């Protein structure tokens, strides 16, 4: 018998007397938090990420300021002129390692948890570009901010690879002392556009 059939057979035998029907209580909703954009801003900042609020017309200037002259890679569909940036056309991991920063957009922002979700569409690029460079500048439109995790899950497409980001990379593995910045970008700079 194949391992597959064997395991499925054992599962069925183990549950022979167990009814598969069980009522699953609906996950509760958090109470209304009022101004979601303000909450999103505050909760991201709690992770020691940098948040800058700007207007649509001030975005180019805000990006330049966030980069501070760092050499950046951008996804092909960013939809924004960034002076001196390299457009990703399948750069190798080693090539990405030589670049200081990346600029992406996002798919969703979650206010309750201060989370940004990337679904790696052309305005965000493939997963590697927002991972290897040390500074991630992420542009989130205020209209993309939802209240909580269930709202994000309802909007996101599971067929796409997703990266949920809550602050810069961090570890608490040594004496539970939180240190920002291990393997992912050590600085996360969110530009919140209104």
């Amino acid at each position, binding site marked *: 018998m*194949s*391992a*597959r059939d*064997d*395991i*499925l057979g*054992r*599962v*069925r*035998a*183990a*549950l022979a007397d*167990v009814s*598969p*029907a*069980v*009522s699953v*209580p*609906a*996950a*509760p909703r958090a*109470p209304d938090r009022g101004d979601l954009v303000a909450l999103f801003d505050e*909760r991201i900042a*709690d992770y020691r990420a940098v948040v800058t609020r700007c207007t649509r017309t001030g975005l180019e200037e805000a990006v330049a300021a966030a980069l501070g002259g760092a050499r950046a890679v951008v996804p092909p569909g960013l939809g924004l002129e960034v002076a001196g940036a390299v457009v990703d056309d399948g750069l190798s*991991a080693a090539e990405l*390692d030589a670049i200081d920063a990346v600029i992406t957009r996002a798919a969703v922002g979650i206010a309750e*948890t*201060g*989370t940004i979700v990337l679904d790696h569409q052309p305005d965000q690029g*493939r*997963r*590697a570009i927002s*991972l*290897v460079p040390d500074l991630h500048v992420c542009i989130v439109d205020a209209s993309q901010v939802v209240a*909580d*995790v269930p709202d994000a*899950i309802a909007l996101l497409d*599971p*067929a796409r*690879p*997703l*990266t*949920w*980001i*809550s*602050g*810069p*990379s*961090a*570890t*608490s*593995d*040594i*004496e*539970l002392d939180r240190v920002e*910045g*291990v*393997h*992912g*970008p050590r600085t996360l700079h969110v530009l919140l556009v209104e």
Partner: protein
Amino acid sequence: MSGTFVGMPAFPTAARAALGDTQLRSNLAHATHTIRDKRAAVVAEVEEWEELRLAGAGVKEAALRDLATHLETLEASLTRAGATVHWARDAAEACAIVAQVAHSHGVDEVVKVKSMATGEIGLNEALEAEGIAAWETDLAELIVQLGEDLPSHILVPAIHRNRAEVREIFLRRMGDVGRPAPADLTDEPAVLAGAAREHLREKFLRAKVAVSGANFAVADTGTLVVVESEGNGRMCLTLPEVLVSVVGIEKVVATWGDLDPMLRLLPRSSTGERMNPYTSTWSGVTPGDGPQEVHVVLLDNGRTRALADDVGRQALRCIRCSACLNVCPVYERVGGHAYGSVYPGPIGAILNPLLNGVSDEQTASLPYASSLCGACFEVCPVRIDIPSVLVDQRAQVVDSHRGDRIPKAEAVAMKAAAWTFSDARRLGLAERASGLAGRVMGRFSRTTLPGGRTAAGRLPGPAAGWTGARDLPAPPKESFREWWARTDGGTHDDQDESGTTKGGGS
């Protein structure tokens, strides 16, 4: 190879050794109290927490009760998304599949994301025997691997090491396996983390094959989920050409929407954060993005055994958050190694016997590694009633030793305890009896516990099985009940019969 560390002594013996290690105890007390407080703060923020726990338990319970259907759905979804699905009855089969994938690409190394399942099956050792080096990339796992040590906590496997020890391990060992630590390395956590970043980056950039586990596997969409903090997970899941994920069959949830209660429950329970820094989800292969060859190994290794246990089945709901470890008074004192498995603490005390049976002495001792205080159930995000499972497992240990000519000491001790605790009057009598024993033992005691309290060493007779592994604190000469009766609740003079005034606390 099962989930237990080979050659590990039974819990009582290992616990005794751990209790004598004051460095270990202070590292642990500091660490568990820190996470415990963080968890309590972020859980208190969520008004609907109890309803969320019910929803989380419901999602996992529903998935388990119809597991065969969900596994078939998962297999079909994964295959549709371009992944290759393998099934492994046990550790040996799972390790062989991973080794075969690595061999087919001609590699002599793989990078690994921290995964309990691969620890459970002893994958690193199995790959090493095949000439393949498995590099752990989680900081704590790296500390454990370089220190040639064993993990002692689900979330923070190197919780038993302090910063000075980590610095020493990095200086001594990093150069043997790759980029050495800088000579001027200090013991600042940020500096140590920086050294790990430099050391591992060259491995991430050149690795062809990565191995991961998964926190959740979504049946209807074929999506795997990895929850992490450092970005080492993202590196492994994104940069290599080939990805193999070893996933226990109990990781299944039915639908994409089921991730909602789980992703709200796990980070707050685990690291005490509103959300962990990184969560990655992927469904098979995405052209032009990430690994273009994706394998998923669905692992049984005792899970169907646990599934058949009516009381114990609920342990398969576990999402490995480690909250139960951090609140457990037994874990806090003895640490993770005493449990002899990658699954320590309260969950380990039930999961190891459920996965492996209780025929060997090491596993049979685990259901006794608890005071049944119930703190683990209170914090469990999926409401696993660990105390009830412990009690049921104890009964199974006793049953499995019924044929023994000499009754197991634990069986005798626990039966006596159950009889005593069931009746307040008997408890009063027993306390008085142990007070008498305390006066006798105090005179002959050979050991002093920290704080100067005398301790009994090994006792003769029926208690030998218990004290052979514990420095039993000598019972106080007067029990609390006796003191209360004599002093009318402390309103009379507080002198005991030896004439010394009692100090407060301790």
